[in-house]
């Protein structure tokens, strides 16, 4: 299939997944911010989330302080934040629009409706009234779009590239969600607040839909080690790093047709490490260091996928021009710019 088409589908899936995970992350932080705690600690949560999303600078440019409302607003609908939920949903829709003929109308309708509905909900004041409801809605729409993909699309290259986008983004996002919480713990001066930790870690688990999974798998009290073990290594659970990278490895195999052997090898290597990994060993070297390395490797895989199959990242900036043809205007598409802007953020 056309590289550009695959590229649009890959990014459509990435942005959809990113919108979902941003909603999950905001939800967890929002719930935490409602617990009795010092203002400093509440701010720490938001600060850590922005920093791990590499958005501290963009936020600081337009805001003072770390009020929950401000951060939620910034992450959910701020136009200046390229990874805000609104911008992600718009990008998902625009990417699909560019290749409508290569997907089916049900997928287009679901993403287009999401985009239109999102604007309606925000204009209706849902963020001010009930942020939780909005986050749930974003998650639900992401489930719906994925359901349409799985339930209606032909299993061809277009489909595999979409899946590839989903799992690359999910691996990245899950790693960040985990990292943000560990960073918070490390930054906290007071290490004695044990009961609070319970809420802290359940919030992490809930934000990746992992709380019930945790209970089932461990049947034990919640400890940071086990939470990390679950999110990183538990391959049977589709939001873990191990599961996401295993999918990435398989999907590269499907679309490569014997090409891109180095990319395939690197994915297989990372997948094998996660499959055979022990959480004790990972924690020994420091979780933050491990996750930083993991994110770099996922990022490298994503760039390689772009280079091998899709549109290489950061293309020369295309000039805009118009031409009056037979009652039509020809304008250079600005899609690739939108995408790279998204990449630079995360």
């Amino acid at each position: 299939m056309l590289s550009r088409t695959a590229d649009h589908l890959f990014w459509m899936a990435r942005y959809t997944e990113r919108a979902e995970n941003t909603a999950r992350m905001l939800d967890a932080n929002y719930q935490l911010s409602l617990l009795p705690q010092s203002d400093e600690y509440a701010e720490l949560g938001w600060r850590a989330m922005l920093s791990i999303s590499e958005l501290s600078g963009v936020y600081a440019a337009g805001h003072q302080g770390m009020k929950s409302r401000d951060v939620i607003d910034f992450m959910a609908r701020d136009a200046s934040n390229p990874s805000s939920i609104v911008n992600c949903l718009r990008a998902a829709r625009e990417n699909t629009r560019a290749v409508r003929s290569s997907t089916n109308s049900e997928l287009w309708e679901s993403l287009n409706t999401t985009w239109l509905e999102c604007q309606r909900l925000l204009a209706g004041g849902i963020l001010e009234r009930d942020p939780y409801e909005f986050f749930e809605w974003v998650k639900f729409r992401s489930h719906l779009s994925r359901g349409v993909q799985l339930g209606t699309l032909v299993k061809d290259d277009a489909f595999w590239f979409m899946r590839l986008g989903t799992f690359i983004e999910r691996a990245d996002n899950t790693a960040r969600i985990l990292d943000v919480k560990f960073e918070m713990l490390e930054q906290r001066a007071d290490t004695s607040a044990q009961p609070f930790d319970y809420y802290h870690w359940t919030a992490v688990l809930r934000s990746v839909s992992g709380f019930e999974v945790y209970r089932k798998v461990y049947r034990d009290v919640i400890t940071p080690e086990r939470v990390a073990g679950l999110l990183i290594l538990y391959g049977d659970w589709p939001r873990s790093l191990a599961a996401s990278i295993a999918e990435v490895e398989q999907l590269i195999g499907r679309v490569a047709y014997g090409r891109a052997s180095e990319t395939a090898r690197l994915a297989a290597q990372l997948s094998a490490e996660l499959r055979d990994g022990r959480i004790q060993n990972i924690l020994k070297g420091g979780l933050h260091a491990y996750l930083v390395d993991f994110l770099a490797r996922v990022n490298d895989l994503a760039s390689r996928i772009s280079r091998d199959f899709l549109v290489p990242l950061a293309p020369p900036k295309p000039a805009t021009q118009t031409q009056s043809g037979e009652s039509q205007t020809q304008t250079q598409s600005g899609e690739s710019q939108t995408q790279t802007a998204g990449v630079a953020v995360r």
Partner: protein
Amino acid sequence: MVVRDIYAHIAGIDIVRAGQGEFYVLEDNLRVPSGVSYMLENRKMMMRLFPDLFSRNRVAPVAHYPDLLLDALRAAAPEGSDNPGIVVLTPGMYNSAYFEHAFLAQQMGVELVEGQDLFVENDYVYMRTTQGPQRVDVIYRRLDDDFLDPLVFRPDSTLGVPGLISAYRAGNVSLCNAVGTGIADDKSIYPYVPDMIRFYLGEEPILKNVPTWMCRKADDLKHVLDHLPELVVKETHGAGGYGMLVGPASSAAEIEAFRAALVANPDKYIAQPTLALSTCPTYVEAGIAPRHIDLRPFVLSGHDVRMVPGGLTRVALREGSLVVNSSQGGGTKDTWVLER
């Protein structure tokens, strides 16, 4: 020089019925005629909304147009390509006809590409796919000449493909329509078409041309200036209903502005009598009312010349208006050819 000596694989001829019911060719569109998707979608809609009309009348079908188009494009392939790679080249999703480009590509089952999807190596054209480069033999381009190749035409074009014209010259890729066919859209070429038919085909034209005054001729210009309030004046390079004067529907100030433009630049204009275009009952806000129409049938040239029995009927939705272009608020209608 070009395959089968065909330059205009797809032509859209604008036809009007006027006065006593005689048909005229209003203009030829040989560059990148658009609108065929409306013909197809209008029919689909009408069949869905009024199935009983179709069961009572024997309406000749038009839905096989994409099939005929694909056949014409395959016929344009350079010699030696048994299974030619065919693509539709679009300026991109922000073009107003993008829907049509995507629609036709999908209906024909060929790739819809933008300039950035193609590249030229050793005078062959390839498209970038996830499985590596793939040869392209025929390009149905919905992009004007100027933007096709920045190495030959506009150097600032990012919509085209560097080296495309070189590959085209080498005979390794066919462009549909060929480069330069837009000259036939020029309104100062139009008056010569009947003579071309006589000269090249040795036949009498079946359809009449609208009488045309060419303002670059002194006598014609004088006549036009003397009768400006009765005439329609058009720019020779104009399209889309822009830059034209419909004398009887214009204010004195508009007419005087055109008079000044004509005197300053007579070469740029032609003039025609204001035709009493036929009308068609049209559903408008006030109810059913007559509105002026024209008809654009699409002519495909491949192994032979073919058409579907139908075309794009354009309608001027404003009361009394003679300008049917969609860019001027015109609409479209399903067009029936009845079988006996």
